[in-house]
């Protein structure tokens, strides 16, 4: 499933990040890459969402959340 569909409070494992190299590099600088577990801090199912990565919180646009496959 896509990260965009993950429910608030769930911890999910990143399987794949589609989209360009640029997005991948931006995400990996924030420690979001394939094989990492992240927490869905907020997801309103519209507009941007917030994920928790270790001790930090990262805002992702809806479009980006649809480029990240998780389970």
């Amino acid at each position, binding site marked *: 499933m896509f990260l965009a569909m993950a429910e608030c409070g769930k911890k999910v494992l990143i399987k794949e990040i589609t989209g360009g190299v640029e997005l991948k590099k*931006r995400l990996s600088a924030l420690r979001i890459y394939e094989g990492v577990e992240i927490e869905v801090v907020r997801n309103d199912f519209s507009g941007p969402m917030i994920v928790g*990565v270790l001790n930090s919180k990262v*805002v992702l646009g809806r479009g980006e959340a649809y480029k990240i496959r998780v389970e």
Partner: protein
Amino acid sequence: MAKKLTIALAGNPNVGKSTLFNALTGSRQHVGNWPGKTVEKKEGTLKYNDYELNVVDLPGTYSLTAYSIEELVARDFVVDECPDVVVHIVDATNLERNLYLAVQLIEMGANVIIALNMIDLAKKAHITIDEKKIARFLGVPVVKIEANKKTGTDKLLDTAISLAGKKRKKSLITYGVELEEHISKIEELIKKTIKLPEKYDPKWIALKLLEKDNEIINKIKTIKNSEIIIEEAAKNRKHLQEVFGEDVDTSVADARYGFIGGLMREAVVKKEVNRLSASENLDRVVMHRALGIPIFFALMWVMFQVTFALGAPFADIIDIGFGLLAESTGAFIGSVDLLPAWVNSLVVDGILSGIGSVLVFVPNIFLLFMMIAIMEASGYMARAAFIMDKVMHKVGLHGKSFIPMIIGFGCNVPAIMATRNLESEKDRILTMLINPFMSCAARLPVYVLFVGAFFSAHQGTIIFLIYLFGIFVALLSGMLFKKTMFRGLSSPLVMELPPYRKPALKGILIHTCERSWLFVKKAGTIIFAIVIVIWMLASMPWGVEYASEESVIGQMGGFIAPVFGPCGFGEWQPAVALMFGFAAKEVVVGTFGTLYDVGDEGLGAVIHSHFTPLSAASFIVMVLLYVPCMAVVATIRRETNSWKWPLFVVVYTSGVAWVCAVVVYQGGLLLGFI
């Protein structure tokens, strides 16, 4: 003689980098731009023991992959300028993510010191860090500091001085057998085939080539025989992709984080605690689905109320001071027989009244800049971007574009420069085009003057509404542009939500003083020059009454004034004021001061005899929306590298402003206002 050393400060955004920079250099700072770039460069000096230390604050970045202009600037400085020491400030509460940058800096061969900041917060979060182990793992010194309390900074400087000039042992991370093999293969090839400048580490270059880093490829390209290496690297990259089934970049990120993960297990003890803290609760409120936007606007309203309530007494003092100065200067010049009358007129009517009418607004502008700085430092700005994302999406932009727009309340020039933070060209241009509608601090004096003269009962509220109207027009224009010129998808939104922090007073003050000083400097130079030009135009041809309709300026104004007839201010003076406002918005009020030949009764009273409440409202709308100042137009020209967009902005904003002013005035007349 003192020995000189250059220390670069690197680090993620929001880790206390500026706090450390301020703690080290205090007021001995110089703000400029990186050569040829629109990224701000901060430098400062300090004397420490026998050394003169030059501290360079690098832009805050998460990584050094050179995907954004900030990353590129930071990396180029470390690689090309070879600072003696690079101090990497690390947030101890978020070590694992922060060390990603540390690893990259070390890979580059820089002389790195890790400054572990926010140790106090880490303790509170039950994180115990063994800095000696980290130092052993990374092969670089680690110093614990608390930048906000200035503890540990002496030790940091001692370490930096002892480290300078020493060559560090190379490379510590292993990227796994397969990847390492390819890295060393290319490294060997580099050593054999080309003459690499000494400042570049061959292993690092090999890695960058495998990562297909275009900046590095371009740098290497100029070296003889380099095409062999670039070609070989591309081949290896492809091969690795096939072997791993993933990009080399992912494998590299994996290896770096794997290495850091190992370090974390050894050196850091973390008690599992509930992350739900005060910050989380605050987020629930300020980022509430329904309440978020009202809270944001309420905060802005408070911001403007404070700006005016606190600023007023100081503005009065400056006003009175300039009045006294003009009086005594006039009396002095009058008492010297040799000086002709026109000198008196130039100094008192021209220079003093012009500069005075601008400087009066420094307290308001200072407070506004301070509020914006507090919003930024507290972590609220990023929340505002999140809240506004949905609204901004309707315009085809994302919430991040709202940050330049808020900065635009201060000054549109840095705001347009701040669009650099947006990744896509389309987003940048679109944000630049709508940004001039965000009312900058220089327009504020006009509102204060007119609102004070006509609608003084609800000054704060009305000025707040003026700003809201600017936002409204900006968003509407954005929507229009998106539907016509900028179709297509928005760029990705990836943004860290920094933890809330109590803003450091010192940092806020330094920042605010810098900004305000720029304003004063502008008042002292550009505005000074314009005021003199106005005075000359108002005094010529020789013998006319000063600033009368027969003067050159009066004739110019009279020529274009009919255009503003439908807006309700068809006299020549407003036309002249608007004309000069294109040079710098700060001048508008000063021009009125000169043209209406204001005496003791003050500009506010004089305005009353030239405007009605309705034409004042229409004039405010005009000033809010019409052409941004020359500096902004020039900045848009520089940022877009074409004349097309700045010219478009000039034409579009003038059109919009005229139409809105006419609607206000004619509509008001129909509704029975005067």
